[in-house]
C-alpha cells in the first residue's frame, strides 16, 4: 500500500482524534466504561503501527512527533505503577522483611561477623591500654565517653528525651541507609561501615569499662541494642547482597542480576529502618531513664528474644505457602 503522506493522514486522523478524546480524561482511563477502555487499547495498537509506518515511510516529523506524543501519552495512561498502600507496610512487617532476611541469612551472618569481631577486638584493646583507644578515636572523645557514663541514668528532662529520640532517627537511620547504599561498590562500602562502627563501639565500651563505668554503659545499651545493632547488621547485609549480585551474576548482566534482587534489598533496608525507628524510641525514652538496672536487664533480655524470634519465625507459614 503506497500512500502519500496526505492520504495517510486523512485516512488515519479520525482514529487519532478518537484516542485523543479518550485520553482527555487524563489519569482516569481506568474509570471509563469497559468498552471505552478496550477501544483505547486497540486504538493504542493502531497508533503504534501508524507510528512505525510513518517512520518507515519517512513522513515529515510533525506527523511523527504527533504520533510519538500520542503513543507516549497512551502508554503512561495504560501502564501505571501499582499504588503503595498501607497494606503493603503491614505485609512488609509481618512477612516480607523477616523472610527476606532469612533468604539472605549468609549475608546477615557475614555482616554480623564483620561487625562483632572488630567490636570485640576494639573492646579488648581499649580495655588493655588507653593508648589503643586514642589510636582509634581522639583523646577528647574518649574522655567525653568516660565522663558521660560516669553516672547511672542520665536524668534528662523530657525535652531532651524527645530531642535525642529525633536525633537517633536522623543519625542512625541515615547511617543504615549509607551502610546499605555504599554496598553498590561491590559490597566494599557496607563492609567498611560495619567494621568501622563495630570497632568504634568496641573501643568506646572498652574505654568506658576500663574507667570503671562499664555497668552503666551496658545497662544503657542493652535495651535498644537488640533493635539498633541488629538493624545495622541487616542494612550492611543488604548492601553486601547488592554487591554480591553485581559479582555473581548467574547468566544475567550485572545490573539485571542486581534488579532480580531488588525486592529483597528493598524489604531488608525498609525493615531495618523501621527497626531503627523502634530503637530510637527505646533509646530516647527508656534507656536513659532511672529505672532500676535489674528491670532494664530483664526487659533487654525479652527484647532480644523478641527480635530473634521475629526474624526467625515471622511470616514463615505464609511465605512457605506462597513459594512451594
Amino acid at each position: 500500500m503506497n500512500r502519500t503522506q496526505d492520504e495517510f493522514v486523512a485516512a488515519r486522523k479520525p482514529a487519532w482524534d478518537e484516542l485523543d478524546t479518550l485520553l482527555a480524561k487524563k489519569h482516569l482511563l481506568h474509570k471509563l466504561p469497559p468498552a471505552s477502555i478496550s477501544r483505547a487499547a486497540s486504538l493504542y495498537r493502531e497508533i503504534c503501527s501508524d507510528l512505525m509506518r510513518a517512520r518507515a515511510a519517512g513522513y515529515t516529523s510533525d506527523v511523527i512527533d504527533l504520533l510519538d506524543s500520542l503513543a507516549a501519552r497512551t502508554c503512561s495512561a495504560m501502564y501505571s505503577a501499582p499504588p503503595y498502600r498501607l497494606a503493603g507496610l503491614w505485609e512488609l512487617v509481618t512477612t516480607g522483611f523477616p523472610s527476606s532476611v532469612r533468604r539472605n541469612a549468609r549475608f546477615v551472618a557475614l555482616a554480623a561477623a564483620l561487625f562483632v569481631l572488630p567490636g570485640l577486638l576494639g573492646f579488648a584493646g581499649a580495655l588493655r591500654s588507653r593508648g589503643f583507644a586514642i589510636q582509634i578515636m581522639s583523646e577528647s572523645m574518649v574522655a567525653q565517653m568516660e565522663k558521660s557514663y560516669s553516672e547511672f541514668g542520665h536524668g534528662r528532662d523530657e525535652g531532651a528525651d524527645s530531642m535525642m529520640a529525633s536525633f537517633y532517627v536522623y543519625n542512625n537511620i541515615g547511617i543504615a541507609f549509607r551502610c546499605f547504599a555504599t554496598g553498590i561498590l561491590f559490597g566494599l562500602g557496607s563492609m567498611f561501615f560495619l567494621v568501622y562502627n563495630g570497632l568504634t563501639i568496641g573501643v568506646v565500651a572498652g574505654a568506658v569499662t576500663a574507667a570503671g563505668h562499664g555497668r552503666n554503659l551496658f545497662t544503657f545499651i542493652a535495651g535498644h541494642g537488640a533493635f539498633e545493632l541488629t538493624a545495622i547488621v541487616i542494612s550492611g547485609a543488604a548492601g553486601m547482597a547488592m554487591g554480591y549480585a553485581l559479582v555473581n551474576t548467574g547468566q544475567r548482566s550485572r545490573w539485571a542480576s542486581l534488579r532480580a534482587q531488588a525486592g529483597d534489598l528493598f524489604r531488608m533496608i525498609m525493615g531495618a529502618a523501621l527497626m531503627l525507628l523502634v530503637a530510637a524510641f527505646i533509646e530516647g525514652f527508656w534507656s536513659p531513664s532511672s529505672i532500676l538496672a535489674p528491670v532494664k536487664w530483664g526487659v533487654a533480655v525479652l527484647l532480644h528474644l523478641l527480635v530473634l524470634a521475629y526474624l526467625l519465625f515471622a511470616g514463615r507459614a505464609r511465605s512457605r505457602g506462597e513459594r512451594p
Partner: protein
Amino acid sequence: VLVLATGQHLASGKAIMSSGTLLSLFLIEWGYFVAFEAGWNGTTPGKRALKLRVVKVGGYPLSFMDAVLRNLLRTADFLPVGYLLGLVAMTWDGRFARLGDRAAGTMVVIEDPVRVAPVDHPGSAGDAAEIASFPHRIALPLPEREAIELLAASARSVAGPALGAGRDPRARGGAPAGREVRRSGAFPRPGLLPGGGRRGRRGKATSATGARP
C-alpha cells in the same frame, strides 16, 4: 550507631536543635525525593520546573520501590565528593543513568516542551508562480529533514518568532495544522514499539512520555 554512645554528651549539654528540626532534616534528606517521585509519577517540583521525569527504562511509571532504591543510592553516587562517582557512572551509560538509576532500572527523561510551529503558507513572500515552482514535498531522507527543521527552530528561537516560521515550503498541507505537538525524542523502545529506531535529538535518553498534566 556511633550515637548510641556519642549522643549522650549532646543530651547532657544543651539542646542544640529541637526534635522538630531534626525530624524535618531527616524527612527532607531521605523522604523528599521518594515521596514526590513515587506519588507524583516520577516528578518533583524541581523536575517539573525543568521538564524532567523519572520513568522505568521501559517507559512506564516507576514504583515506590524504584523510587526508594534510586534515592537511597544517591549516597553512593555522591561519593567521594560532589556526585563524582555518579558522573563517572553516567559517562559509562548510554542513558546517562547514575548508579541509583541503574540499580532501580529507571531513567530521567526530558519532556521537551518545544512546539512545532503552526503550518503557515508563504503568503506574501513571493508571487503565485514562485509558490507553484516549489516542490510539493522535498525528497530528502528523514534525518536530513530533521536537521533542517532543527536549524530553522534554532533560528526562530534566536531571531524571534517572525523569522523562518513560514519559510518551510514542505510545510504546505502537512499534518494536522495548528495542533500542539510535543517535540519528542525517542519513544521508549524496548518491547513497546518494535522497529522504532529513531534516535532522540538529544541522544538516546531524550524521550517524551507525553502530555500528562
